[in-house]
């Protein structure tokens, strides 16, 4: 059952320079406060945005612990806001597919290299062409060959590890991937035939929308210790990959929202928004969703693994040297649309909770046992793409994330303009030509739609990073600038 909202945006009380509270008495049914991390400019951009209502709505869900959280890049999503984080008790809590998102395990992978900007600059147009050719991109991009049903099930169980035996992964890739590139509990039998059909020929493809490949370079190192641990240095060329679980993951979420929507009443749940359809964590519906979500998440990790492999091949062909000799090692791969069972301190007690991160990354600090041993002394790498004309950031999880955000941080700059509005505002402007004037090569399936993803459509990543640092969620490690962008 759904309960209508009041229409008045929830009031924000300022707690400190970058912390704002939506008090639990703002809305009937809120079980806890909402907390949003934002500076003055980011808060101003949220006035009138339904994302604050969504933070309040999430606070009504049964079993929520701590606060319903909005990261600094928060914006309007479906059910949960994008940039939303919420944790639920195992006993009495719920799982909501809308708290993970339609693109299950959408995430970011970053490769470093031994190449300097000078090494790459004169090859950059050819490199962009080679990447555009090697990685199918654009709406409905497909490989042209289908995985067998057995192979697809293996991908959904094994994730990035599926690529190891096929020569599409380096030995260190898996240990530098969240969850080692495979979430436990994947159950391909809970993934519908339609989802299987959509995923069968989409592995190794980028897709469209805000997904991209970006050849960039480390413009500035801001934390030498962490940069050393991550293998980054000023002037170094990098490759960032942003994509998810393609049609397979989209279909899993669509199917499971419909299933949970039908059973909400049976579980006695009353929801302020139907897109928050959810099920008790101990219910058959929750178990089925978790099995399907893990399968889709593993598909996404295999997808980014294959894309990285194809991109390494493209670098090698253009630069005329094996990828190993170019030092194209992986810095990290993380998810920003996922739910996981983790241990967190709640009310002075360590408890098992199911953390929903939708448009939010894990950001564990130094010493956390789930941070790969390679980085444990400094903390987990946090990869935060900005927009294609300005900058992206590599950060590291900070201690405050465990106290303030269930070990989470922002996942990008966050949109501040609709696709419609961006196309309208930039009508007649050739965005690719404009970026090329700034030294950024662009390859896109649809140049005419690049305006939807232009810098103007996004918040300033500097404000987002600055807020996340002031809130104690992350520390900035390096600022990356784009050299070439491949868009779907």
């Amino acid at each position: 059952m759904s309960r209508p909202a009041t229409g008045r945006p929830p009031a924000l009380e300022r707690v400190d320079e970058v912390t704002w509270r939506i008090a639990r008495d703002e809305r009937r049914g809120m079980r806890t406060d909402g907390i949003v991390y934002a500076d003055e400019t980011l808060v101003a951009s949220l006035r009138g945005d339904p994302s604050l209502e969504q933070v309040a709505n999430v606070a009504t869900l049964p079993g929520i612990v701590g606060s319903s959280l909005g990261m600094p890049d928060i914006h309007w999503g479906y059910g949960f806001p994008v940039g939303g984080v919420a944790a639920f008790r195992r006993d009495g809590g719920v799982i909501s597919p809308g708290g993970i998102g339609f693109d299950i395990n959408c995430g970011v992978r970053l490769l470093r290299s031994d190449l300097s900007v000078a090494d790459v600059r004169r090859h950059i147009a050819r490199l962009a062409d080679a990447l555009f050719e090697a990685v199918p991109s654009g709406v409905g991009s497909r490989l042209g060959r289908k995985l067998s049903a057995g192979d697809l099930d293996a991908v959904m169980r094994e994730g990035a590890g599926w690529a190891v035996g096929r020569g599409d992964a380096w030995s260190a890739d898996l240990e530098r991937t969240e969850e080692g590139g495979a979430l436990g509990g994947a159950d391909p039998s809970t993934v519908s035939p339609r989802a299987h059909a959509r995923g069968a020929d989409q592995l190794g493809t980028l897709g469209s929308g805000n997904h991209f490949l970006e050849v960039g370079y480390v413009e500035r190192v801001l934390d030498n210790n962490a940069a050393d641990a991550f293998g980054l240095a000023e002037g170094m060329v990098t490759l960032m990959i942003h994509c998810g679980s393609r049609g397979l993951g989209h279909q899993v979420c669509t199917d499971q929202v419909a299933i949970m929507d039908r059973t909400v009443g049976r579980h006695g749940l009353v929801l302020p928004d139907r897109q928050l359809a959810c099920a008790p964590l101990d219910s058959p519906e929750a178990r089925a969703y978790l099995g399907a979500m893990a399968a889709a998440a593993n598909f996404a990790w295999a997808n980014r693994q294959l894309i990285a492999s194809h991109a390494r091949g493209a670098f090698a062909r253009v630069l005329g040297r094996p990828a190993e000799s170019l030092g194209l090692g992986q810095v990290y791969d993380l998810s920003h649309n996922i739910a996981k069972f983790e241990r967190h301190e709640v009310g002075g007690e360590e408890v098992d909770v199911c953390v929903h991160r939708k448009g939010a990354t894990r950001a564990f600090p130094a010493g956390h046992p789930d941070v790969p041993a390679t980085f444990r002394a400094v903390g987990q790498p946090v990869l935060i793409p900005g927009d294609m004309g300005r900058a992206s950031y590599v950060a590291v999880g900070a201690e405050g994330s465990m106290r303030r955000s269930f070990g989470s941080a922002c996942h990008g700059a966050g949109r501040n303009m609709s696709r419609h509005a961006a196309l309208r505002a930039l009508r007649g402007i050739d965005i690719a030509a404009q970026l090329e004037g700034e030294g950024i090569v662009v390859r896109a399936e649809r140049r005419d739609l690049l305006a939807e993803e232009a810098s103007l459509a996004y918040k300033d990543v500097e404000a987002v990073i600055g807020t996340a640092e002031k809130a104690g969620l992350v520390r900035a490690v390096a600022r990356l600038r784009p050299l070439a962008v491949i868009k779907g």
Partner: protein
Amino acid sequence: MDAMTGRQAIRGHETLPHTADVGLRGWGSTMAVAFEEAALALGELTAEVAEAGRGGHMLDERIELAAGDLVGLAYAFLNELVGLIDLYGALRDTHLSEIGPSDDGWRLRGSARFLPYDGVGVRRRAEVKSATYHGLTVDRLDAEWTMTAYLDV
């Protein structure tokens, strides 16, 4: 809109802005027409069909869906089309032969036609992840039915 009267035509569709995504609205004199118009809006959002592509061989797919209520049926209808668009091609039109209440909720029957993508005359446009329940409504005002939906793209 009718240019002379400023009133909505008896059937039609449009797209709607959303911060990250896009919405659509279809309307008409019957519920079936409103659904069919919403499908046309979805087809136009997701593909472009030039004159050269219009003569291609169309794939015809039967649709049979059920849901507990009317809004659930709209969610199922749009997402059935989103999945078929990903698999088959540009959605050209739908025809609903039956839509209405059933013993345990609502049901519809009909068909949808798709033109396979060729990258020239039939090109993909936006990739829709899913239609959502957010702002999803099916309403009747006087003699006009309207479906409004927001899509995650």
